[in-house]
């Protein structure tokens, strides 16, 4: 019984931590994709579907990045200490 309870606490704690880690991972990936040298692969004078390649690349990655933040933070309810809620 106690063990189950402890296990439950552990699980919720790690879930929160996992979310933090996923977001850090996403941040690092974003830094990679928005900078040299990956950026230079798309820094070409090419038009795709009437849109400049670099413009298309940056805006698509931007949008996908936002979707990923949404997916990572979508679930799970955080526990804010009681006394902080009233302020």
């Amino acid at each position: 019984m106690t063990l189950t309870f402890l296990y439950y606490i552990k699980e919720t704690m790690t879930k929160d931590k996992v979310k933090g880690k996923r977001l850090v991972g996403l941040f690092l990936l974003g830094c990679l994709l928005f900078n040299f040298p990956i950026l230079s692969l798309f820094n070409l004078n090419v038009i795709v579907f009437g849109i400049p390649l670099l413009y298309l690349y940056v805006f698509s990655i931007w949008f996908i990045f936002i979707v990923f933040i949404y997916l990572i933070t979508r679930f799970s309810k955080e526990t804010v200490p009681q006394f902080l809620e009233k302020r």
Partner: protein
Amino acid sequence: MLKTEAILFFSFGYMGLLFAIAYFGDRHAKIGRSIISNPYIYTLSMAVYCTAWTFYGSVGRAAVTGLGFLPIYIGPTLMAALGWLVLRKIIRISKIHHITSIADFIASRYGKSSTLGSVVTIIAVLGIIPYISLQLKAISTSFMILKGYPLINMPGPFAEMPVLKDTAFYIALILAVFTILFGTRHLDATERHEGLVAAIAFESIVKLLAFLAVGIFVTYGIYNGFGDIIERVKAIPELKQSLTIGSWAGSYINWSIYIFLSMMSILFLPRQFQVAVVENVNEDHLKKAIWLFPLYLLAINIFVLPIAFGGVLHFTNGSVDADTFVLTLPMSHHQQSLALLVFIGGMSAATGMVIVATIALSTMICNDLVMPVLLRLQFINLAGRGDLSSFLLFIRRGSIILVLLFGYAYFHFIGEYYTLVSIGLISFTAVAQFAPAILGGIFWKGGTRSGALSGLVLGFMVWAYTLVFPSLVQAGFLPKKFVTEGPFSLELLRPFQLFGLQGFDHITHAVFWSMLINITVFIGVSLFSRASAIEHTQAAFFVDVFKYSERYEKSSFWRGTASITDLTSLLKRFLGEQNTDKALSVYAASQNINLKEGLTADADMVSYAEKLLAGAIGSASARVMISSVVKEEPLGIDEVMDILDETRVVIAYSHELERATAELKAANQRLKELDRLKDEFI
């Protein structure tokens, strides 16, 4: 034909509407039904990040550098992903310690040092002044262009214009009045302005809609969609280059440095701190805001490039400043109402920034610059005077006017030589100086007061030397030789090529040197200096805030006691009679004590009073004031060790949990194994 009176009528009508919203918001807050307590309003208030810089300046930047305007919005997007770790931590710390400004935050982290608070305030004020001048420039320029409708005349030059004939001067004054009415009607211990936030959120909607309207008009009204514009651009060789960001190494470095700058700015600009941290109602709102806010940025940026290219294609002779394309394109196509909408949109972008920034700065000037000095001056005997809350309001109002007048002066003498974006970037670089002290402060316990102080001061000096001094040369206050040959003809000290470093643009160059020196000195001095007991405690509380959240509210760091009468009268002087009574009765009810019965306040109550006071006058001053009525024995090293001991207990507990989990896992494994064996057996 648009008459001046008509433009003024719409402008003041719009401001009136903002007031109505603010009034409505404040009234709802009073009866306890907050209209801003949801993640959507929170996100929109964060969008105060998008100022006239975004509204007019991005297009101007894009016309010259193509995608060069974008890093300023990619940085905050990346930071949003980290927001859950960094911003949430800052919010939690600020709520627990009743921190109301960025100066207070840094001062509080490094042992409630009033020196540090003053230094941060000075850096923030001087750093933000160019940014405010940018907004004044945008409003006055757009006003003067719109006045000429349907003709398009570029206004200027401003420096020769007499001050009393300059529109920008009156705009600065009107904005000062509006800010005072918005932000300093009453003194609140938590520095929260619900009505203001509601008005700012509304402004964010207006500027977004106005910008999208122009974007759609230019892309689909004037041209046949995005593809059409690009086809035309391809035909012009000079323009074709701006479809990429340039292939030399320096352009990638600039790009990355701008991303870094904007990442820091989204956290540490005083107005961002105000809306994201101080005005935050519930931490949980952050969860939605960290993806909604980048989405807002994405939306407001989609049409920047089409408008910029449209402008360059349309005004071929280069007589029209690219910073005004957003307004001049609809004007040249005789879209009177659209031009007016753009003007209002630009105004909402600019006023939102000015109002929130000056309120944040006035809080800092009052709490972290003026109060500590006044409290030190014995002959004024501030602590012994009657109700001081009206005096505090007076200081704040005065500083709002002062900040705006400085902003005007900067615009008048220097602003017109620079584009909107390059003015803004000067402010961003100043604000980035806070990064080592704050990020180092919330993730590293080893940072000390001396380290933070010396890092900040040196970083700030490098900023001033590499960015502000050259702009004084531009305005004619310093000889041209200063930039071309260096001071006293010392080539190595040329402000744009410090120590001979070349190949960067001015901002990147300044960021590199100032951050290098700031970070190195912060870490170096921290490692070689000793922290006092209170620094140790604060460091532990800031870095491990999520462990201590529950405890801090109850625990006391005052070993001494005070008489309730002294404490109450002290609070009344700064918070006013009504607020004090309310706050104390809440405390009495929650602690189940009768205030009239007890004559001495225990340590718990003293620290409660300190936190209340910190909200009104800043943590450093609050400490000084409380210690004047409390017979306090300072926290010794033993107590600090006690607190740290708690951490060890927590860690031991979590180890226990881990062991239990391992046992469970093993049991589970065994079960599975048995299950498998059973299957095989059958």
